Structure formats: C-alpha cells, structure tokens
C-alpha cells in the first residue's frame, strides 16, 4: 500500500463547447497523503470542482493519470463520500432516511446502518431531528445531514465541493469548526483519519481547515502554489487570530491575485 491516497499525474481535461474545445484543466500533478486535509482554492471557473469530480471518477480526465488508493480511476469509485454546495437531500425523506440513502444506493441493507446513522446524527448535533423532513431544518443543519450521509459508509476519502458556500458567514465559521471536530473524532490509533479534498472560494476557510492549500489559476486551471499550513492542531477559533494565520492567508491571496502590494484583506 503506497503512502498517497490520491495521485494525480499531469492531469488535463478539455471539453467540447459550442464555440470549440475548452481547456478546463492543464498539467495538474498532485499527491494527497492518507489522512491529509487538502484544500483547493482558486477563482471561479478554474476547474476545482471538475478536478474533484475527476478524482471521484465522475468525469474522465482527457490526459494524464488519476490514481486513488493505488488504483487507476476509470469509472466512479465507491469508497468516497461527497458533499456538495447544496445539501441535495431528498425532500420526501426524513433526515435519518436521507443519511441512509448511500447504503440503499450501494445495494446494502439500510437496517444494518441505522445505528451508525443515528450516531452520526448525534455527533453532528442533529440529535432529535432524525425524523424531521429536510425543509424543517435550517440550511446549516441540512448541510450537517449531508455530511452524515457522506460519512455513512465510512469512506476513507471525503470530497467536498464548496460545502459551506451557500451558508451565511457565521454559520459557515461554525461549520468549519464542526467539520474539524468531526474529522478529528473519526480518526483514532487504529483507524486513520479521513483524507479530505476540500474545494472552497474562501482563503480563510482553506487556511483554517487544511494541512495544505493548493492554489489554482484561472482557465485552464493549473496549480500555482502548494502551501503547507503548519498551524498547530487541534485548531480553535483563536487560531484565526494567530500571526501565522494572517501571514499564510496573505501569501495565498497574493498568489491568487498576483498583487504584491495594497491594503486589501483577504476574504
């Protein structure tokens, strides 16, 4: 078993649009180790979400090789959990039944997962809401349910596509903190922590959450920088006030915008 869970080697992706071929991603080489939390930041349309889907096997790369867990990704791979920008819960199902959906889709007996689903619901602070319909929950709570759904089958890899992008700023910070807590709790001496690939627009969010932040350029998406975030864990709200936090955020901001001077603060 190799050390890297994700290994992208010179991955490129070109698609046909009405106006001709569009190069969405070019020359992406990226390795993500087991248990690592890596964020992808970049301007809109830089292909971060596409890259996430290529890792999941949902879209084919048009060049280069994609490996997850030492195997070439040719089709959708089952050992991942996905969280999208919208919670996309099934409106007619209770929260519990929504969380159990992956078991049903994967052809497993959902009854065998009820206990785990209940535990996840408790862990994400949704205890007491298991039998509610999605519309009875706030946006943040719905996104927690989506996270439970992604964790149900205990996948080693979590792919998150701007999961907090639709939430208000305060809920968003709160959710980031929660995510770190849950991520930390899922790891132990026997069970390695989950590997997370996290797409975001927010530099602050990326710095706060990640072990590494990968900065991408606009179309075609290329890797502009790969920065280790050496802030101590577990991270708390105070981490945001640390000098290193500001310095790293500014550095990422400069890489993203190409600006080296100016009094602009990053998001």
């Amino acid at each position: 078993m190799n050390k890297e869970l994700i290994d992208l080697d010179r991955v490129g992706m070109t698609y046909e649009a009405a106006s001709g071929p569009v190069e969405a991603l070019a020359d992406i080489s990226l390795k993500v180790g087991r248990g690592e939390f890596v964020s992808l930041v970049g301007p809109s349309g830089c292909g971060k979400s596409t890259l996430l889907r290529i890792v999941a096997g949902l879209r084919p790369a048009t060049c280069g090789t994609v490996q997850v867990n030492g195997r070439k990704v040719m089709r959708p791979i089952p050992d991942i959990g996905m969280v999208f920008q919208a919670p996309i819960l099934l409106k007619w199902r209770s929260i519990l039944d929504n969380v159990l959906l992956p078991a049903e889709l994967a052809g497993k007996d959902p009854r065998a997962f009820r206990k785990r689903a209940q535990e996840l619901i408790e862990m994400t602070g949704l205890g007491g809401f298991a039998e509610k319909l999605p519309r009875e929950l706030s946006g943040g709570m719905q996104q927690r349910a989506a996270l439970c759904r992604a964790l149900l089958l205990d996948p080693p890899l979590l792919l998150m596509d701007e999961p907090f992008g639709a939430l208000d700023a305060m809920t968003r910070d709160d959710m980031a903190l929660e995510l770190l807590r849950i991520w930390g709790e899922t790891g132990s001496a026997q069970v390695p922590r989950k590997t997370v690939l996290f797409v975001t627009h927010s530099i602050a969010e990326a710095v706060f959450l990640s072990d590494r932040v990968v900065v991408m350029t606009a179309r075609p998406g290329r890797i502009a920088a790969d920065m280790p975030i050496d802030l101590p864990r577990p991270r708390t709200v105070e981490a945001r006030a640390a000098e290193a936090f500001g310095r790293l955020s500014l550095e990422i901001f400069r890489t993203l915008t190409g600006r080296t001077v100016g009094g602009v603060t990053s998001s």
Partner: protein
Amino acid sequence: MCLNVRLRMIKFQSLLRQYWPTVALFAALLGLWQLAVSAGGIREYLLPAPLSVWNALWYGDIAWGQHLWATTFEIVGAFVMAAVVGVALGVAIAWSPLVANALVPFLVFVNTLPKVAIAPLLLIWMGYGLFPNMLMGSLIGFFPVVINTAVGLSQVEADMLDLGRVFSAPKWKIFLKIRIPNALPYILSALKITATAAVVGAIVGEFAASQRGLGYVIVTTQSSMNTSVAFAALVWISAVGLLLYGAVVLLAHLWAPWAEGID
C-alpha cells in the same frame, strides 16, 4: 388529546375565517337570483329560479340515478385511463431517449387535434355507449400527465445523480428511490387538470351521441324547454367534478405532503 382537539378547533376557525367570504358571496348570488326571477317575472324556461332547480334536482320525471351513474362512470374511467396511460408514457419518455424522440412529436400532434372534432369519429368506430365518451375524456386529459411525469422524472439535481453513480446504483433503483418520488408532486398537479378535463370529455362525448348521462339530459331539454332540468344536470355535473378534484387534492395531501404549497 386535549391539545389535539384545541388545535383542530383552531384549524376549523381559521378555515371559517378564510372561507366565509366565499360562502357569503355564493349565498348572496343565489338570493339575488331567486329575487330577480320571482320579483322580476323572468319566465321559467329562460332562467329558472334556484328553488325550481333545487326541486328539479330531486324530483321530476328524470331518472337522475342512472344518468348520474353513467356520467360518473365515464368520468372516473376517463380519469383512470388518462392517469395510467399518461404516467406510463411519461415514464417511457424519461427512461429512454429513443422512445422520447419517437413519441413526443407524435403526442404533440395528437394534442393539437381538437378532441371535440374526433367525437363523431369515435361514434362511427365504436357506436353508442359509455366507452367512447370515456375515451374522449381521457384523450383530453392525458397529455398534461405525460408531460408532467416526464418533467418530474428528469428534474433531479445533477449532484444527486452523481451520488447514485458513485455507488453504482442501477437505473431502476434511481427511478424507484429518487426520480419517481420526485415526480409525484408534478404528476398529482397534472391530475388536477385531468380531473376537470375528464368531465369536459365525458360531457362532450354525450353531446355527440348518447342515450344516457347528464350530458344527454341537457341535450334533451333543448326540445322540451325544461330549463330547470338542464340547470339541475349542470349542478350534478359540477358535483361529480368537484368530488373528483377534491379526491386528487386529498391524494396529493397524503402522498406528497412535502410538496404542499408548490402549485
């Protein structure tokens, strides 16, 4: 228990508050109508008074029972046929692009035909009877069901479908667990239209050719100038129509409560 009763009372009170203007307007119109006819000396064969209509509803020499039964049978049959055929075609269209390409233009063509104009043809092909009228009702009512079923089945977020692909869920499972429940509110909302269309179709069929039914009763009153009977037949028709519509609303409430207030 006590709370439950109280909640019900509150619900009843709010219903009353919402609908008293409807009831009041209806009663006022009936009162005015009665007054206009009895005080204004309008002749019965032109406009019968509400009370005469009321009498015609229950008495008179019309065998309401058999006509009501015939028309109700046609309407319900038309509704069920339109629903079953409509949903089946909608599912077929959403399931296979090939079927969609083959069927949709054809269905659009059928839908643009004025169904009323087909009524004499149905008579030639099938003769007198309840079935041609039933067919007329379902012809008018099935199209919205096809369209709404197909649309409801395809209006699923791309991310949700990706989720299905990640777990390699087979196509039928995606239909059963995601697409069909998703389409349910769309289908039920089309069925509300179908309920009214089924009534129109059945009556049109009876107008064209029939020996029974409320539409037939109306046609016969033309020669007898028995206008109050025509009005009474109208009341019965709308009663059947309202009941069917109400049944669909109730069904929507039971089957798709999450979609309440969408349409």
